[in-house]
């Protein structure tokens, strides 16, 4: 029970009054960010990341900084449910499935029940995922300690191939978007040889592209432009939340324990795979409909139809942090931004973190438990207040959000060029979103590009350029093999269907 001891020490770190205060601030900010259009988990954390630079330099400050940022993430996950249910606007792709039954419930005047169900199942999903992280992450990290460059590269390869194989949609667009991310990551000074790459003699490109700027532009400005087109007015249902509604819903919820457990399992598993939260929410919604006695009522305001996707999405969003802290491979764009934060603070995400900075890792894990409890309390008590934020007219809130994005982009390097770049990324984000190029692979590739390339180089340097190094032992061979299967999955399944169809 080593983990329990380590976790208790983590609670010791996380329960300091300052860190508790940061949790409340983080969760509240996160919920507001999740509710506002144009601000989501990824770019909300990206904008606030520069504010933690000075905090992280104090002793123990990195733990406080990660607690603040990860709580923003939990808050944003909770906040997404509010817009989905009350306004039928999914704040994040994984809350789309929540609108199916959540919004009909709100229209029938049961918004309070839907919200309580959503928040409670989010909490349950996250809790199960955190328990899994507590016990699984030391194992995974211990296993990964033996990894060398070929293994790390094959893990990255697996991550990126999973996007192509799992995401569905247009595989060529996933590849294009991902490779653009890698190319942007390569811009600037090459750390190994000192060569300037893709700078074309300019000095502004010397530093390369910062992923924070890309995230703020792609998700922030891009989303504002998209929202603008869809219409300016938010027409929302009223939410009546009081202790009676909450208790009434809580009495009903235990009936759906099977749905909860199933969805949490789907979420935990899919969350480890990058880009897994969205398919996890849809998958568990579909499973709940199939297994439910009155599956045909789904879509007309069944509380179970809220429980399933919310549990899965929150479980997946939480377990996305497992590969981030153990392998240095983030499972979602927001996890990628958090990982970028660790790098900026001077921490090396990966298995060594558990050995070198146990107080950081276990402080973070303990804060996941506490942060979600804080989150549940805040959302249950503040819904009317939060919904009123959405009633602020778009013509006021939109410029304010763009100003916030500009401030966020500027403060990363105190450079105006970054602000211009943010606008460019915004236009790219808008076009890509409308043409269904996925943005998450681009961001992940931009964050991981340098590390992936470094491991690739070291691996093939060791083997004198022989690419078979990625099949040199059972571990790396099976990782690479699995990656290739996932990469060609669209082709394999198409071929399978063609063969099966002929018969």
């Amino acid at each position, binding site marked *: 029970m080593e983990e329990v001891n380590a976790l208790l020490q983590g609670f010791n770190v996380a329960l300091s009054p300052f860190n508790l205060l940061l949790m409340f601030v983080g969760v509240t900010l996160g919920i507001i960010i999740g509710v506002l259009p144009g601000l989501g988990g990824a770019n909300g954390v990206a904008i606030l990341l*520069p*504010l933690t630079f*000075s905090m992280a330099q104090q002793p123990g400050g990195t733990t406080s900084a990660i607690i603040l940022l990860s709580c923003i993430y939990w808050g944003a996950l909770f906040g997404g449910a509010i817009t989905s249910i009350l306004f039928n606007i999914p704040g994040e792709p994984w809350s789309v499935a929540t609108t199916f039954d959540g919004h009909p419930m709100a229209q029938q005047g049961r918004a309070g029940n839907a919200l309580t169900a959503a928040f409670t199942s989010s909490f349950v999903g996250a809790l199960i995922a955190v328990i899994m992280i507590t016990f699984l992450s030391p194992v995974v990290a211990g296993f990964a300690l033996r990894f060398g460059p070929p293994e790390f590269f094959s893990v990255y390869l697996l991550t990126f191939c999973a996007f192509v194989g799992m995401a569905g949609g*247009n595989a*060529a*667009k996933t*590849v*294009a978007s991902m*490779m*653009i991310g*890698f*190319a942007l990551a*390569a811009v600037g000074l*090459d750390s*190994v*040889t000192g*060569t*300037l*790459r*893709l700078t*074309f003699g300019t000095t502004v490109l010397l530093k390369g592209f910062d992923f924070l700027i890309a995230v703020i532009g792609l998700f922030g*400005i891009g989303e*504002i*432009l998209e929202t*603008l*087109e869809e219409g*300016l007015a938010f027409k929302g249902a009223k939410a009546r939340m009081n202790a009676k509604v909450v208790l009434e819903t809580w009495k009903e919820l235990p009936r759906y324990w099977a749905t909860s457990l199933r969805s949490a399992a789907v979420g935990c598993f899919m969350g480890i795979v990058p880009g897994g939260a969205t398919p996890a929410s849809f998958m568990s919604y579909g499973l709940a409909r199939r297994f439910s006695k009155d599956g045909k009522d789904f879509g007309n305001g069944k509380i179970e139809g809220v429980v399933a996707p919310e549990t899965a999405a929150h479980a997946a969003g939480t377990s996305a942090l497992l590969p981030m802290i153990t392998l240095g491979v983030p499972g979602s764009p927001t996890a990628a931004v958090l990982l970028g934060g660790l790098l900026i603070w001077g921490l090396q995400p990966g298995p060594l973190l558990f050995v070198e900075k146990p107080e950081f890792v276990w402080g973070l894990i303990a804060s996941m438990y506490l942060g979600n409890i804080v989150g549940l309390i805040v959302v249950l008590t503040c819904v009317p207040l939060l919904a009123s934020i959405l009633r602020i*007219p*778009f*013509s*006021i809130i*939109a*410029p*304010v959000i*763009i*100003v916030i994005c*500009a*401030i966020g982009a*500027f*403060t990363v390097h*105190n450079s*105006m060029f970054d*602000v*211009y770049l*943010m*606008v460019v990324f*915004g*236009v790219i984000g*808008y*076009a*890509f979103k*409308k*043409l269904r*190029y996925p943005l998450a692979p681009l961001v992940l590739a931009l964050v991981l590009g340098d590390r992936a*390339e470094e491991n*690739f*180089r070291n691996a*093939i*340097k060791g083997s004198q*350029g022989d690419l078979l190094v990625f099949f040199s032992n059972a571990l790396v061979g099976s990782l690479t093999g699995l990656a290739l299967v996932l990469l060609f999955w669209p082709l394999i399944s198409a071929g399978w269907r063609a063969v099966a169809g002929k018969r």
Partner: protein
Amino acid sequence: MEGERSAASVKAVEIGVAALVFLFGAVVVFDSIRIGARWGEDGPQPGYFPFYVGLSICVASVTILVRALRNPALAAKSFVSRESLKKILTVLVPTVVYVALIKYLGFYVASTLYIAYFMWALGRYPWIKIVPVAAGVSVVFFLIFEVWFLVPLPKGPLEAALGLN
């Protein structure tokens, strides 16, 4: 949207974006070859990894391009209606002007003007509401960033005149 005139079809935009992506990939490939994309004396040359990245971009964009050309349904679909495009430009153009102005006017003055413009152009608010909201937001930001978080943002002539630098 039906009944609205389209400014561009999905097909046209799809092809345009794919061509731009291809161009980007080609630039990456050429620059990688310039700095060396082969096996050097002691390991891969700096362009080795980006070369294949660029190549994948080119292959992917050609695939997207060919698919778009072969799909007649895309030509009928509207990427953006004229009304929407107009709306987007009324936001995008001022945003470009706004970020350009920051250098000369400073963050706070430029932001005030930007929020004011937005409220005037999109919200049709009277000036009596616009001025206090726009100025108030900037003052709040000033307090948060300059006073509370001690993050200095670019300042212009107004702050200099007020002695706030």
